[in-house]
């Protein structure tokens, strides 16, 4: 119970810090000092305190987008084990609800973008739905492989103690799955090499260009939601990579948080060392991720 409350509290507070870590790592690799770790939080609070300007083209759909999007991601947080021994709400098939809630968040963001009637935002929305639709099978192939390997039907068991045994017997498959899910995490969270969150050219953006017209508290909701989503995917990767069984829940929680930091650092390193892919190559990357986890599944099914 204590740890359930603790993981939810951490879920609400820590995600913007991950963005801070990514920024710091990127800057350090480039030889700069970088912004303070708390900068994302400060940005959020500043945005929340501002007023908002709305396009005359927009309707209630545009105003509802950020609210429903963040609520969906928050609800998804209930389903993911975030350091405690179990997710806050766990049941067979919860991964499907998690994926659909993230899909809902994406759907309302896309629809809100289309509400502005801007060709740039339409472009971003088209890219977003294209890439996320292609990322979906990669994620589920990974989950199916995990189910085959651990015998679990909910996220708590798919990413739980069974993994410790599975890493011993099916290490190579799990490695492929982890790699594939990491790629999915990069794509879903609009990071390099799929999307460059720091770019200033609208033509090359994906996620950022969709939210061009949001301002003030709406933008704060969107950016906070993006940080939470990164934390959720981080949890997926960390729990999968950690794999070890720690008897003491406090130690497990600490290991989880350390893992999240490492995840953020890894993303920072990827961003610092890689260039953004050309947009036509992104589907290839995602299909490649599907192929990797599909391959893992084939290896698992053979034995």
């Amino acid at each position, binding site marked *: 119970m204590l740890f359930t409350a603790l993981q939810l509290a951490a879920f609400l507070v820590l995600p913007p810090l991950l963005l801070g870590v990514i920024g710091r790592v990127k800057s350090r690799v480039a030889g700069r000092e970088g912004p303070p770790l708390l900068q994302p939080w400060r940005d959020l609070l500043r945005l929340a305190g501002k007023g908002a300007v709305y396009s005359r083209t927009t309707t209630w759909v545009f105003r509802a987008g950020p609210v429903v999007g963040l609520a969906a991601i928050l609800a998804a947080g209930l389903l993911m084990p975030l350091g405690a021994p179990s997710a806050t709400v766990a049941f067979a098939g919860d991964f499907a609800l998690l994926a659909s809630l993230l899909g809902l968040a994406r759907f309302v963001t896309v629809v809100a973008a289309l509400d502005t009637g801007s060709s740039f935002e339409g472009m971003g929305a088209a890219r977003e739905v294209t890439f996320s639709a292609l990322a979906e099978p990669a994620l589920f192939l990974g989950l199916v492989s995990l189910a085959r390997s651990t015998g679990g039907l909910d996220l708590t068991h798919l990413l739980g103690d069974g993994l410790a045994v599975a890493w011993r017997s099916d*290490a*190579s498959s799990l*490695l*492929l799955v982890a790699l594939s899910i990491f790629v999915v995490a990069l794509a879903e969270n609009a990071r390099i090499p799929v999307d460059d969150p720091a770019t200033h050219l609208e033509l090359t953006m994906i996620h950022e260009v969709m939210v061009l017209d949001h301002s003030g508290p709406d933008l704060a909701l969107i950016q906070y939601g993006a940080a939470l989503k990164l934390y959720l995917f981080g949890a997926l990767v960390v729990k999968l990579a950690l794999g070890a069984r720690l008897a003491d829940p406090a130690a497990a929680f600490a290991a989880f948080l350390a893992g999240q930091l490492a995840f953020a650092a890894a993303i920072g390193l990827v961003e610092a060392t890689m260039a953004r892919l050309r947009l036509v*190559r992104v*589907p*290839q990357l995602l*299909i*490649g991720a599907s*192929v*990797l986890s*599909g*391959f893992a599944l*084939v*290896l698992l099914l*053979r034995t």
Partner: protein
Amino acid sequence: MTTWADLLFLLVLVLDLFVLASSRLRAGIRAVAAQGGLLALLPVVLAGPATETRHVVALALGALAVKGVGIPWLLARATRESTVNREVAPLVGFAPSMVLGALGIVVAVWYAGPIPLPVPGKHPLLVPTAIGTAWTGLLLIVTRRKAVGQVLGFLVLENGVFVLGLLLSDFMPAMVEVGVLLDLFAAVFVMGLVMFDIQRAFSSLDTEKLASLKD
């Protein structure tokens, strides 16, 4: 030891897919070099107590020198001198060829079981890796237009043959090793000549242009 071998085979296969998916010739060459290096490790990892250490070391070092360093270096130099550094329009797109390659590998993994082997007790992924890698090589040769891409295909094909050769290395060690390496060398030699000739005749490495030689 099995886990390490697992990992090696897997990496070899993943590199297959990478070569299929990459449009940059330089990245492809690097991937093939890495694959050669990994193959050099294979005899070491697979060596049982019965195998002779000298042969293993010779095979590993030979493979490393030829596959991991020598040929990739030659190819890299050839691409540096020519102006081609990117496969532009392959006959089959990159993503579809990757999916085709993956399908071939899956089929290989699925059906390698029933194939009767002369040597029992070999690693279960050995034959699938060999078939899958050879399949990748063939795909590359068929689908790429640039001569360098086709040479890469030959190299990958030879890598597949090399893996299959490991199966027999217990029986006739020296023969296999020498045969495999020589075969490879001949292939590259021929392709090098071909590339040189195409380049000289058309100032380009696009094999499609050979079609214009007809009457």
